[in-house]
């Protein structure tokens, strides 16, 4: 999981840095990325746990599977792959584990 280096990218993009927090920890990203993109590029592969406690992250990447849901600024069940990250977003990871 990497954000492709801007210098090598033939599309010739401009990166405007943003910063979000994930469970309180500051995570850098660039404007335009989805929350899922920021999380993946920061080296996180999973951020939600299922009923059984198993880890999940992105699966379908286009909003159909609901595996990647997070809480954004207090609003739960936001599909990380569909929500654009905004500078200052407070992201909390979620669990469906019953004893959690």
């Amino acid at each position, binding site marked *: *999981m*990497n*954000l*492709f*280096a801007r210098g*090598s*990218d*033939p*599309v*010739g*993009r*401009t*990166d*405007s840095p943003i910063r979000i927090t994930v469970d309180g920890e500051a995570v850098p990203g*660039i*404007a*335009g*990325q*989805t929350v*899922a*993109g920021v999380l*993946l*590029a920061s080296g996180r*592969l*999973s951020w939600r746990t*299922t*009923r*059984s406690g*198993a*880890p*999940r*992250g*992105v*699966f*379908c*990447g*286009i*909003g*159909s*599977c*609901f*595996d990647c*849901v997070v809480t954004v600024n207090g*609003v739960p*069940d*936001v*599909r990380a*792959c*569909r*929500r*654009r990250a905004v500078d200052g977003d407070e992201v909390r990871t979620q669990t469906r584990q019953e004893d959690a």
Partner: protein
Amino acid sequence: MTRHVVVIGAGPAGLAAAEHALRAGAEVTVLDQADAPGGQYHRMLPEVYEARNPQRIQHGWAAFSAQRRVLEHPRCKWWPGSTVWALDHAAADRPPRVHVLRGPADGASRQRLSLTPDALVLATGAHDRTLPFPGWQLPGVFTAGAAQALAKGERVAIGQRVLVAGTGPFLLPVAESLLGVGAEVVAVLEANTATTVRKGWSARPWRLVRHASKAGELIRYAGTLTRHRIPYRMGRAVIEARGDDRVREVVTARVNPDWSVVPGTEQTYQVDAVCVGHGFVPQPELAVAAGCVLDDGFVRVDDEQRTTVAGVFAAGEITGIGGAVAAAAEGAVAGRMAAGGEPDRNLRRARDHTREFARRLAAAHPIGAAWTGWLRPDTIVCRCEETTVAELREAASNPVQAGSHALKLGTRAGLGPCQGRMCGPAVAELCGGTEPHHRPIAQPIRLGELAQKETQDEHP
């Protein structure tokens, strides 16, 4: 009076529908959940990336750039970031009212609006189908579409060492996109055998002449794989992903034409990501909400792209998987007819020609019926509720619990947040019978938003 046509979905089908509805004189509103037009096929980089050379990763960029300008037409309204969560019928002879939420994806205070169109064009597209296999729930296992969306849409690679597998020509652009964001692609595996693929594509090859550009595209992908020394292996499938908290390795095996595993041919790849796609399934939620009749999950349309519901047209992947060219050709017919235009023989003929390609695609890249041989009793089928193969088989064999409704309640398969989008077809195959689509709420809406007063329909 000018007709108001609402087009849901701004992919190849929806944009063509908008273009032709405008040409026929209608006022058009185009809605899409995404904040940019193009759909999955023409997935764009975010505007704030300010890409100087987007054409470097966008196939057919010039044509798409021209087409998306229909959204700037004076009779066209473009509503990005718009989720249609329900359709309801006011009168039997009119298309349903369209209930929309506008704002950030899954936000809590989106604007609630409704539209009352004279005709509705549904162009909601498809998503990947990924068959279950042991370990497919591990982080690091992605659909092919996810790998593509992240690479093309954000320039993020899903892993450093990636295996691409499944079936269909879509695996090739996915591999190319992954290379384009610096990932190493260890191999591309096509589950169908060379014989199946060859027979499917090249029976009566003269009929494919019209699709020569598609062939050229495939040859270019083949060249890319060769240049990067990436093996493209046919008749080989991913049958297991292994790892504790994430994928560490994947097991592949040679498979027969029916996708049964050839014993002793297992091979393991060390990877940090694998993406798997076994073709596509339509997203017919809104067609179902409108009351359209479906055949095998696809929206039934007549020769003019009319569904079985008055004033409702459908185009693109929800009527059959045929790719972007077919989707656009259907969209053109649908848009013209929705606007009240006369049937156009040329548009219809162009549409009919694309159907040959769709037929080949289906014949060359079928799903082998013996894929269920990959499963083990403890393999998860419903990702949301973690329902296993053993639980499903037991419930299906229980005469007291017959029927899909009882099966769902007994095992919770299909009752999770994705509402069976991921596991529906697999559950149906494992338990026998088909799962009728029934989702009254097409997309999640928050109770707070539902309670909110609706902003008045801004269209006369």
